[in-house]
């Protein structure tokens, strides 16, 4: 209760760059950070994920140029030419900067994309007293993409790749993305954070989504950063009347990763899905944190998060569902589940309900445990060897979350990514065994 922990974490890793920021918004953000420092476990929202891992290092700006051939090769690996996903229009960032030469020029009709450097706009998050990592992003944002879908346009699918390429020293990049959907528009974005030949970098993206009336944004993210990377992402979604933000995050990579979502339903009959799955091993820490705010009546929110933990890995789930006074007839459901596959794996879960309206239907649940013995025996009694039976159960456990993604193509991509990751994990385990 009174554990002695420093109240602030030094800004040393970014001090030089923070002292040199230009522009009002950036200066305000740097000022706020100077007052608060980076969040420590003393801050409730960072109770379980300790950024101490960043201290003692100095993060430099990522290099601006990159090796075009290496980047192309990496993209071919990430988006194999024979996969359906390779046919989709793509936007590519390399080391936090928009790379026009790697990106599609022919975006679907009604979709426009500009890079953040072209027209920097911090949007709704200009206020500096935001979450620490968002303030850091605001102060240091290098680039990013700003996607706008015109009203009524059904813009289909779009791939957004963030590639860390050949960064062997401590570098950090802080892209600032935004997605704006006009009234009645729809878009599916599949965001892939990946790396090629990259070391211990920090990727700190911020994405803001403005979803107008009756618009529908599907946002699927696959995080497979380099094994020594730190990935700290924040997403804000503002959802209007009858609009929907349907999201799924799959956490596979990084030594430390956090996917933080703030989704606020401002209009009646809006819907939010913040689903996810994490497959962690070695000494990975994976954190899914969300605040789903019901700020209007008759809205629906759903959240299912599943974690599979091997070795010394640790998963964190913090999910708050906030129902404001006006948000009568709210329907909220939240479920967090974890499978512990190793004696030293750990889960910390904090599913939270904060409710100020009375006519609501809200529930949450959480379970933690090992694989079910009955299920395992059933599979084995049908002749399936122990290892294979375990893998089937693990995959099934995660697939149940993946199957909540409605877009069939994105779901298929997730299934394949997951199957590949699982077979690699098993392969790695067999090698060490």
């Amino acid at each position, binding site marked *: 209760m009174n554990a002695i922990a420093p109240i602030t974490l030094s800004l040393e890793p970014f001090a030089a760059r923070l002292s040199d920021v230009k522009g009002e918004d950036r200066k305000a953000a740097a000022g706020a950070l100077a007052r608060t420092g980076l969040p420590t476990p003393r801050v409730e929202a960072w109770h379980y994920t300790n950024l101490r891992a960043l201290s003692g290092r100095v993060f430099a700006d990522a290099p601006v140029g990159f090796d075009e051939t290496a980047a192309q090769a990496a993209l071919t690996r990430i988006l194999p030419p024979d996969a359906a996903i390779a046919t989709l229009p793509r936007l590519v960032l390399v080391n936090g900067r928009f790379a026009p030469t790697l990106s599609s020029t022919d975006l679907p009709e009604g979709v426009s994309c500009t890079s953040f450097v072209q027209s920097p706009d911090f949007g709704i998050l200009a206020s500096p007293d935001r979450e620490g990592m968002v303030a850091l992003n605001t102060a240091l944002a290098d680039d990013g993409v700003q996607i706008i879908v015109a009203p009524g346009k059904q813009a289909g699918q779009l791939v957004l790749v963030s590639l860390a390429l050949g960064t062997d020293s401590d570098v950090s990049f802080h892209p600032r993305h935004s997605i704006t959907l006009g009234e009645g528009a729809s878009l599916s974005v599949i965001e892939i954070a990946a790396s090629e030949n990259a070391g211990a970098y920090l990727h700190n993206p911020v994405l803001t989504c403005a979803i107008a009336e009756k618009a529908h944004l599907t946002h699927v993210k696959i995080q497979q950063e380099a094994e020594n990377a730190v990935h700290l992402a924040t997403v804000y979604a503002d959802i209007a009347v009858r609009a929907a933000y349907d999201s799924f995050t799959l956490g596979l990579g990084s030594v430390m990763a956090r996917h933080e979502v703030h989704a606020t339903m401002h209009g009646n009959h809006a819907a939010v899905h913040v689903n996810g799955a994490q497959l962690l091993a070695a000494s990975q820490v994976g954190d899914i944190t969300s605040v789903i705010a019901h700020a209007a009546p008759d809205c629906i929110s759903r959240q299912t998060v599943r974690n599979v933990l091997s070795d010394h890995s640790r998963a964190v789930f913090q999910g708050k569902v906030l129902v404001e006074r006006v948000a009568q007839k709210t329907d909220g459901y939240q479920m967090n589940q974890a499978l512990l596959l190793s004696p030293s794996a750990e889960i910390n879960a904090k599913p939270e309900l904060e409710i100020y309206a009375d006519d609501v239907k809200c529930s949450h649940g959480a379970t933690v445990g090992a694989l079910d013995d009955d*299920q395992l*025996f059933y599979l*084995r*009694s*049908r*002749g399936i060897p122990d290892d294979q039976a375990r893998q*089937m159960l693990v995959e*099934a456990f995660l697939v*149940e979350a993946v199957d909540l993604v409605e877009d069939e193509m994105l779901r298929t991509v997730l299934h394949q990514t997951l199957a590949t990751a699982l077979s690699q994990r098993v392969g790695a385990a067999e090698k060490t065994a």
Partner: protein
Amino acid sequence: MSELLKISGLHASIDADGTPKEILRGVDLVIPPGEVHAIMGPNGCGKSTLSYVLAGREDYEVTAGSALFKGEDLLAMEPEERAAAGIFLAFQSPVELPGVNNANFLRTAVNAVRRARNAPELDAVGFLKAVRAATKNLSMADDMLKRNVNVGFSGGEKKRNEVLQMTMLQPTLAILDETDSGLDVDALRIVAEGVQNLRSPDFSALVITHHQKLLDYLGPDRVHVMAKGRIIRSGGPELAKQINEEGYAAFLKEAA
């Protein structure tokens, strides 16, 4: 070989809050190839325990006795090795596997068993052909294959799914643990026919039941009465009729 399964003096117990509780207290049973045997007995007599012990459930500890299957030590095998050797347990309460597709599960199991038996694995087409034929025989809807294993299945659907698995895995000894419980007449007939279709000199069954009805369909070669963890009486099909009419009381008194 006149003994497919030979159980001798089998004792087994389960851990009940730290202290072992003995449930099987010296079971002796022989099942020759090609025969259908029934085990009847009051609740708690150890029937289900026997089926779990034979299938290799780890919760039970065998404290004495032996079980030879095709002359080999059954109790030394892992559950999947027993399945490959030809033991199939139709569960009293089939387990639900959320997220595991029924067809995929079945194909994985069939090919694992075939691999172990040195039979060629079935490709997708071959498997689908075989499974379609089987589901048709069992009057099962095709969509049962697309659903998750036993999830949201009715009681009857679950039991049919067990028989489907049995059909596909081609066991030499099927243990049916109250497969007839909770079934209506039509479903019972379908399940019984599923078993009858497998009958051959290379297929035996051990049927655990409370009811005469299933035995009427199957025509068992031998009937065993189990009580307090032992087989207390064995006889022909007439024994089942006698139990049906008189109950277990007389047998229990005799045994006591």
